């Protein structure tokens, strides 16, 4: 533990503590996990950028159907490469202490595949396909029916896509969302 501690100064830890939902101890623990993905690279530069493939080795992200979307959303260079700060940000949003609104906002970005600030029909189609996995595929008409039902339930202004306000409205009413949208560090 001494080696890790010497990589961070007290001010940096305080800085991270102010900007995320973690305590100093958790930040050091997060760095340990980040380093485990690529020990040599992170040993040289504690804020190194790891490629998306390396990050997707992390156990929870590897099996997650939205793993690549998560990397893209949290990547500060927008190409999927994650530095330690991005990783910290990611774990902080997925932690228990993050409020529902923060999680909802990131969840919206993750589910918005084409990046147009709306979850449209194509986005929903991709979400459904990824959720059922590529082995069990629903057929086209089923997916269309599901999409129509979702829009019927959630689209309040009838414009054929979910805006952030509508998404947040749905998430507010769900008590299971916080439990699902969580990764323990």
């Amino acid at each position: 533990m001494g080696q890790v501690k010497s990589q961070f100064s007290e001010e940096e830890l305080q800085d991270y503590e102010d900007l995320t939902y973690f305590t100093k101890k958790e930040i050091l623990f997060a760095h340990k996990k980040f380093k485990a993905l690529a020990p040599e690279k992170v040993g040289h530069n504690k804020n190194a950028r790891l490629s998306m493939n390396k990050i997707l080795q992390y156990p929870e992200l590897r099996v997650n159907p939205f793993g690549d979307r998560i990397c893209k959303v949290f990547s500060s260079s927008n190409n999927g490469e994650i530095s330690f700060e991005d990783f910290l940000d990611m774990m902080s949003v997925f932690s228990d202490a993050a409020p529902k609104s923060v999680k909802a906002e990131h969840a919206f970005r993750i589910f918005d595949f084409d990046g147009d600030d709306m979850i449209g029909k194509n986005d929903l189609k991709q979400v459904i396909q990824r959720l059922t996995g590529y082995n069990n595929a629903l057929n086209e008409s089923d997916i269309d029916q599901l999409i129509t039902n979702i829009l019927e339930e959630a689209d309040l202004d009838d414009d054929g896509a979910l805006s952030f306000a509508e998404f947040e409205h749905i998430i507010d009413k769900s008590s299971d969302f916080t439990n699902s949208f969580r990764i323990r560090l």
Partner: protein
Amino acid sequence: MSQIIRFHSALSIDGDLITSTASDVEQITQELEQREQLMEDNPLSEQLRIEAIKSMAQTLSIKRQIRANLARTVTRRSVSRSKPISLLRKCRYSSKMYASQFVKLVKTSLTNFELFYGSMKEVEGHFGNRISAYFKFLRWLLVLNLVVVIFVFWFVSFPQILYSGMERRLEQVSSEDEQNITTRAMRNSRDELSFTDLFTGEGYFTESVLFYGFYSNVSFTLLPGTSEYSLPHAYFLTVIIMYLSTFVIVSLSMARSYRISFIETSGAVQNVLTHKIFCSWDFGIANEKAAHLKHASIYHELREYLSVINRPDGPVGRWNRLRSTALHMTAHLAVLAMIASIAFGTWMLLQQFGQTEHFTTWSALYVSITTNVTMLFFQYVFRFISRMEDYRRPSTALNINLMRNFLLQLCIVGVLMFYWLNKAYDHCWETSVGQEIYRLIVIDFVVSVLFLACLQASRYAINRFYNRSISLPEFCITNNSLGLVYNQTLLWFGLLFSPLLCVVVAAKLFLTFYIKKLSLIYFCKPQSKLWRSSQTQTLFLVLVFVSLFGVIITHGYIITQIPVSEECGPFRGNTYMYQLFMEGILKLQEEHIFWKIFSYVTKPAIIGGLLLTMGVVTYYLRAKSKAQIAKVKLLKEMLCMEAKDKEFLLANISKITRGKEWNFDRDLLNGRKSSTADKYYSDPSGTWRYADSPRKISGISVLRDEDESPTGSGYQRIDECNEERVRMRRF
């Protein structure tokens, strides 16, 4: 800190979803600078600033820049208008700061002590966050019990142990006489611990600190020079305070859980599909096998949803509906008949085996073993019955199953209690009751934890090595949680009669955690149905609350109506237990005015009136909530209308402006190009917000040129030209 909470909700409602393509830092800084409460130069505002920045959805580097910008602005402003802070205000700020820092310190230290962290992570990785709900419930009960253990041990058992140690040394000086030996032999107590005693609680344990009978009724001085420590008062007060505080804690947890899962989600019967889609993937899963199973279960859930949607609504026709009602009625009657017969059978069994002469042998355990095995067996029977009934919604089936099992447990426990309290005892009835409960708890551990684990292991072994058609065992969360509720009820009932029972139960819960976790990971397969965890969790807390309430009522009856035994225990000398409290502590006599008022207030009529008033208030609140739901519906329709209005107006604007020549900078009009300050001040109505987010107009792609009117809305739709994409942020 309420400011922070209010601020959070403000930020999420009118804060904007800013994509990373916009020039974030300046825009965000400007927005934040508008809020007065953030920009003051005191520590409170600094905390608010930190909270606001934390909750933003930006990368860390951007957040750092924003924080630096804000800090610069704050110092700039405070220098320009510096006024000294009064002493009072300084005190207020520093006290708030210290309070919040203290709270943060407590929270940090608590997370260090999170029990079972590694095990929970393992369970969540394999099976997801739903099943860890059971383990969380177990952990909560364990912590509650540990607190009780600490208090009871410190105030009641520990002084008694010290005192009896002192007493024994004094006794050894004087000689032991014959009478002592015979009385002790009569009570079936022995000096050495035998193996049977661990299960029956008799023998060595009868005269030990485990049970009520051992506690003395005198006050003694532990350390010379200090005042007397009155053991009876300590016993009574500690136990009563433990009951009341546990009651308060449980009711608060229940209320909070109810609020979160029912009220805030407004019953959550609608939006089922959206929840299924967005909340079903468990981000905590870390394991390939579990991920495959999760994908499969989501697929099956969606298939089932589609089939339910496409199925015609419910049993059609009067005949079918009648048939299904008749089926449900028969099932309910059958279940009630079964429960009644089990109660009767238990009563017969007790008549046979509940006598004192059985106590030191294994036959004392027959009653406990039978009741526990019956409860385990009937879980499967009830599950079978509910599958035959074929409920339309699986959650209804789950809840009804739960209620039936709970009713069975309640009946059995009720019969047992009734028998014990009405039996004629030779001596020390409190110790005997305590011993019965001890037996029940130990046998429950053996049957529902150890035996069940062996059963699951054997099923797994058969599946692996012999015959694949026998499926792997499933971990049934509801039945296991119900077992926890049963265990807790027994503990609360027995705490009055056996203070150290909480130690036994705490050890049992600890072992249960590890055994269940191991059997879950190695032997069980994940549940195929997705499970609505938070609502059923609330139901369990309600059951715990109901049991605790029942126990407190029973104890109230025992304390006031049942005479205390004369030869043993800390309440010797009084007729009823409460008299110790009244006369000893409050020094009240029967004729006192307080007693008269109290007995008047507890008359049935007054209590009935109170309950009636509560019923009226509940009815009023329910009517109010129904009105709110209707209002919400109305507002939703208005929202739809507003959207259509907006489309119509924007279409008209574009039609009009297209006809004119462009004399001025279109970019300036749209707000895309302007100086940062001007953007806000020159357009205070806020239309500059409607700059960058797209909005699809009901199915038509915005860039298409053909004139196409959509599905009949009565408003004219004009095709949009390519240069002008009217985009709107959320409205």
